[in-house]
Structures are given as structure tokens and as C-alpha cells.
């Protein structure tokens, strides 16, 4: 596979991850599975961002000492070769957001399980009126 094909299939994978996540949130009965769905959607978005940063044939956006000493002051060559680094930084942020949401959701799940002794949505949200 060449670079752009990798990119294409990566996007398709991301879309599938998101769709599976949406499916899990809507149709699964188990709370844990719903939470996994939320996390899958977040991962899908992360994959979209990572793939946007991907550059076919590019290098890691860390300048080496050699490249630095070659062109002090002007880093045209490095910038031409390096992958797009902004999406990677955004992904780091989103990973932490996902981890935080996951922690709180799991905590609430423990509490709900202690109260209802069940993880089924039907059981827990039974009295809820629409």
C-alpha cells in the first residue's frame, strides 16, 4: 500500500469505529458496553485527526541535530519533509479528555451497580419517564 491508500483505509477504519460506537450506545443494554461505545467514538475521532497529520513519505516532526546544524535559522527543508504536527497535538488533548470522561463514567457505573445490583439499562432507568 502506498501512502495515500493507507490514508484512505485509515479514514474508513475511523468511520467504522465511530459507527460501531454509535451502534453500541443506542442498541446495547449493558452500561459498560455503552461506555465502550462512547470511547470508540472518541477513538474514531482521534484516528481521523492522526490521519490528517499523516503525510505520505514524511518524517517524524522532531528535528534531528544533523538537520538542525545543516540549516541553522531556516528550517524550510525540515518543514517540507515533516508530517503535519498540529493534529497530533490535538489528539493528545483529546486522549486526556477521553480518559477523564471514562473515569467519571466508570465511577458512576460502580455507584449505580451498588444501588441496583444490575448493569442493565432497562433495569436502571425503569422508572424514568420520557
Amino acid at each position, binding site marked *: 500500500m502506498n501512502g495515500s491508500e493507507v*490514508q*484512505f483505509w485509515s*479514514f*474508513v477504519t*475511523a*468511520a467504522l469505529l*465511530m*459507527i460501531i460506537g*454509535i*451502534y453500541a450506545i*443506542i*442498541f446495547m443494554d449493558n452500561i459498560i458496553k455503552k461506555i465502550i461505545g462512547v470511547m470508540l467514538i472518541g477513538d474514531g475521532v482521534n484516528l*481521523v485527526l492522526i490521519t*490528517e*497529520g499523516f*503525510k505520505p513519505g514524511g518524517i*517524524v*516532526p*522532531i*528535528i*534531528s*541535530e544533523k538537520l*538542525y*546544524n545543516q540549516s541553522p535559522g531556516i*528550517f*524550510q527543508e*525540515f*518543514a517540507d519533509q*515533516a508530517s*503535519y*504536527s*498540529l*493534529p*497530533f*497535538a*490535538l489528539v*493528545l*488533548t483529546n486522549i*486526556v*479528555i477521553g*480518559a*477523564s*470522561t471514562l*473515569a*467519571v463514567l*466508570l*465511577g*458512576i457505573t*460502580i*455507584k449505580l451497580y*451498588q444501588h441496583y*445490583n444490575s448493569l442493565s439499562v*432497562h433495569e436502571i*432507568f*425503569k*422508572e*424514568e*419517564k*420520557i
Partner: protein
Amino acid sequence: MKFQQSQEMRNLIAAIFVGIFSYFIIKALTDFDIVPGVSYIYNLRGPLIAPNMITVILFDWRGYDTLGEAFILITAVLTTGILFGRGVLGGDVSEKDSTPIRPSTIVQKVFAAPLVFIIVAFGVVITLGGHITPGGGFQGGSVIATAFFLSVVVYGFKKNVFNLSHNSLETLEGVGALIYLCLGLVGLGLSGYYLYNVGADLYPYLGVGDTATRLFSYPDSTNAGIIPYLNIGIALKVLSGFCTIITVLWGAEKK
């Protein structure tokens, strides 16, 4: 409408929604023409600040986003604390830790304690090398938190290798976040811009001689400014945040 009925109707609507959503997502993502955009400028100017572009974006160009990110973690940690009784309205409720100590195999017991040492040291390396190599505060902090998880899993919470109480973890987290906030305030005070990268090359202004300059010579000849210190603050915060979350969730009473 009762729950059961509404579920059926909801499922129908939801199926249609999922279909439409899938169509649009796949359609949008499969014909996507990517523009480098500002990333290119970041790559072009970034090497003047520090060699690792991602760290430069995280802590310099968009350092304020990272501040927000750190605070999401703090919010989540506090929220987990609230869930298990710390700071609820009407006084704290403390749940007793009733988790049994799990029996571990001899291999786990012999190797866990040495591994904890090595993982912590490795986490420190990743944190401090964050602006030159892949790594940084988040990664280093998570690695150190892994050591904590490992010792909790092997030795149980009460007798784990680290003797970190909930309060000391909270303090560590507060210190980490305050380092970040106050370094930002330094920039605000000196230049008028919050999170201004203050650490310009200080050594020429110190008036030290030639020997001293060689003694302090910096291998990559750029100056990362406050970025390493921000990394340290973030590392402290992330590691204590994750440790607090695992502490709280581990202590949840089983019924």
C-alpha cells in the same frame, strides 16, 4: 409513554439516524483533500524553540489548550472523589476499604518492586526529555502512574509499594497545576501575554566566562524556555491524577 414503549420507537428513530450518520461520515472521510495549514508554519518556526514540534505546539503555540486539558483531568479526579464521598453536600462520607489483598505469584512479588523503581526512573527520563525526544509530561506522568497501578495490582492497595495517601496525592496534583498556572502568570507579568515562553537564553546575560559557557553548553543549541518546567508540572499533575482515580475506584466498596 412508558420506558418499554419509548424504547421501541427510539430504536427505530435511532436506526435511521445511524444510517444517515454513517452515510455522511463515510462520504466526508473518503473524499478528503488535506491542507497542511498552520502546521506548516509551526514546523517552519518551531525548531527555533525546541526540537520536538509536538511539544512546541502543546506547550508554546497552544499551551493554553494544554492548560485546559490538564484541568479536565483535575475536574475528572475531583468528580470521582465526589462520587465516592469526598466533598458531597452535607459532609464527607468515607467508605471503608474492604478490598481483599489478592494472592500473587512469587514472580510477581519478586519482580514488582524492582520494576517499580525502574519504571519511575524511566518516567522521569521521558518527562525531562519531552522537548527533545518523543515524550513529555503526559507520557512521563502516565508511565509513573503505571508503576503505581502495578504495585496496587500486585500487593493490594493497603500494602502497595508507594506510601501515598489521598491527601498527599491531592497536594501533589495541586502543586503540579499551580506550577503550570504560575509559569503562565510569570509570562503575563513580564510580557503582558499569558503563557509567554519566558526562558530566553539566559547565559549570555549572566556575564560568566568562556569556561562556564562550555560547562553549560546545550547540546541542541536551542532554548526550550519554560517548556521543560511546564512538562514537570504536567507530569506531577497527571501522575497524581491517575493515582487518585485508581485509589478512589479501587476503594469502592463491593456489595
